[in-house]
């Protein structure tokens, strides 16, 4: 494999070798070094609200059954039968207490434990030949949740999720915790675009600069009140922990007025005031910034916008969660969810969903505008000329690396991390710097797991059991249900 040291050095100084957006070798490295260790989003608890509910989600090629078991525990099982490797669940969503492999009929409880092999006695000599005890569908090496957002990591030794997300949690709360009940999700819509996965992640992380140009038509038809060029640059971008995003500057007013300005009814404003921290509220109420797009490394993005709905001048906010699931160096599966506060009034939920569909999702106007650029970029990055071109991603820093605009002080921006107003590519560089960090680290050593060894369960070749594999007992399990 080609040495990528040069690529990494260029990326670190904000000069991006154009071919990284369409390069098979780079993509192979990303598989081994990025997606083999990062925490990757696989769904939200509200998508598996009741025992037995499951969704099937992927991390690259690995399919996982993400389910709430009969005891209410959230689990992610590798969707591969322990026998000959057939995919156990083929529907994308469902509800089941047990899964039964379609090939030869091995069956599993929804907590992953194997219960039956047809003709166990005749074919295997019963328990003496194949001990069912301790055998289970392979659990994801690591699973954790934050505000109901379920993440898995393929690295059993990954740092805890909260540590990985770091200070980005402060901003994640705006999207996912507007009331004590959190969000509920609709979707996802799922479609493929011929574009490299990093482009969407970078765009949502900090590209305020494209809004006035790419989305001109959306402003022209009066759908969106905000993205006029002179307004967009008044917003702040911030980077904190594993992610960063963009904001809009709000007109003068207090916290309540500003939240109502983007279309939140007072009852939702009141719940946010209970739920968010004083600093989180100060960013809106004192500093006057409202979160818009954001990305968490490596491939999860958020958007919060407030377009006009219906005929009036009234705007209404919506939230979308989206994932840029890599298929290859030049193809990405986009998963786009609608998210809304679970305690929001039904009428708000309906209008917010309408607002989302107008802007994002496979038919959304912002989406259409964006993707045209990303496909074209990916396409152009494939050839030999792209290998000679270093793209300039240095917006916001001078030749000597000094910033064009200093970061906002703690009185001007109450959130953690580094924030500044105006157009820049600080966030895109921060995202790609994390990417460079991962590409430089040696790949995670893949552990092999043995099936059917007497009483061993899922144990790797270094004798480690994965965190969930040893965790078979479920608290309260022996309690009869009343």
């Amino acid at each position, binding site marked *: 494999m080609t040495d990528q040291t040069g690529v990494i050095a260029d990326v670190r100084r904000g000069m991006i070798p154009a071919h990284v957006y369409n390069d098979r070798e780079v993509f192979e490295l990303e598989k081994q070094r990025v997606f083999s260790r990062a925490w990757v989003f696989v769904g939200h608890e509200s998508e598996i609200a009741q025992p037995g509910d499951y969704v099937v989600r992927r991390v690259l090629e690995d399919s996982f059954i993400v389910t709430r078991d009969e005891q209410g525990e959230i689990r992610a099982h590798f969707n591969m039968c322990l026998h000959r490797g057939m995919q156990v669940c083929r529907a994308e969503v469902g*509800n089941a207490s047990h899964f039964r492999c379609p090939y030869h009929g091995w069956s599993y409880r929804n907590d992953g434990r194997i219960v039956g*092999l047809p003709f166990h*006695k005749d074919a295997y000599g019963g328990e003496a030949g194949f001990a069912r005890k301790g055998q289970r569908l392979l659990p994801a090496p690591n699973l954790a949740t934050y505000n109901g957002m379920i993440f898995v990591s393929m690295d059993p030794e990954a740092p805890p999720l909260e540590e990985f997300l770091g200070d980005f949690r402060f901003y994640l709360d705006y999207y996912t915790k507007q009331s004590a009940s959190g969000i509920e999700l609709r979707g996802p819509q799922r479609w493929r675009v011929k574009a490299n996965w990093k482009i969407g992640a970078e765009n949502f992380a900090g590209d305020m600069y494209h809004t006035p140009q790419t989305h001109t038509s959306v402003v022209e038809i009066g759908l969106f009140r905000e993205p006029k060029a002179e307004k967009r640059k008044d917003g702040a971008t911030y980077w904190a922990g594993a992610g960063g995003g963009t904001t809009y500057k709000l007109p003068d007013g207090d916290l309540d007025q500003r939240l109502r300005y983007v279309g939140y009814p007072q009852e939702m404003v009141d719940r946010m005031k209970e739920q968010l921290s004083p600093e989180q509220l100060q960013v809106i109420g004192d500093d006057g910034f409202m979160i818009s797009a954001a990305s968490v490394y490596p491939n999860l993005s958020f958007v919060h916008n407030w377009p006009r709905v219906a005929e009036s001048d009234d705007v209404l906010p919506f939230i979308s969660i989206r994932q840029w699931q890599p298929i290859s160096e030049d193809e990405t599966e986009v998963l786009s969810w609608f998210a809304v506060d679970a305690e929001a009034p039904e009428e708000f939920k309906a209008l917010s969903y309408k607002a989302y569909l107008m802007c994002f999702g496979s038919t959304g106007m912002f989406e259409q505008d964006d993707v045209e650029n990303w496909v074209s970029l990916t396409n152009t990055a494939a050839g030999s000329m792209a290998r000679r071109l270093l793209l300039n991603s240095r917006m916001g820093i001078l030749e000597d690396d000094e910033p064009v605009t200093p970061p906002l002080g703690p009185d001007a921006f109450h959130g953690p991390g580094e924030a500044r107003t105006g157009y820049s590519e600080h966030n895109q560089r921060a995202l790609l710097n994390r990417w460079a960090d991962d590409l430089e680290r040696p790949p995670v050593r893949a552990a092999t797991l043995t099936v059917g060894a007497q009483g061993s369960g899922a144990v790797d070749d270094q004798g480690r059991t994965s965190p969930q594999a040893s965790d*078979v007992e479920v608290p309260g399990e022996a309690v009869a249900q009343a």
Partner: protein
Amino acid sequence: MSAPREPLSWEGEDVDAAAARRAALEHAALLAGARGEPLTIANEFAEVTVRLVDTRNGSRLLVEAPKSGQWVALDPMQVEALTWQGTATFSAMIGNPFGPLIPEASAGVVTDGSVREGGGPETLEGGSQ
């Protein structure tokens, strides 16, 4: 007059209470997804109602005994598994009333010979009891 006494409690009572709370929430969520009219089947010994309930991603059959308050939510494969049973399975269940026949901790894998394994001497017969 005496000092206020610590309320008496049995060991594990808090665990039971938590499980009961979870079961109550689960039951309410299932009922919220009820579809169509419930069916009641009764005789002089027992009475149960059966309802189709939708969860977010699928559906179950909610079987409830109003007198005891006990209930179970069965998915299609559990109901199919009933069609494989002979009267003896039900006799065993009825002979051990109000609790599970097989301890939950076993996860359904019983290896002491008391539960027949697939491929054993008894062969399946079509039809019903």
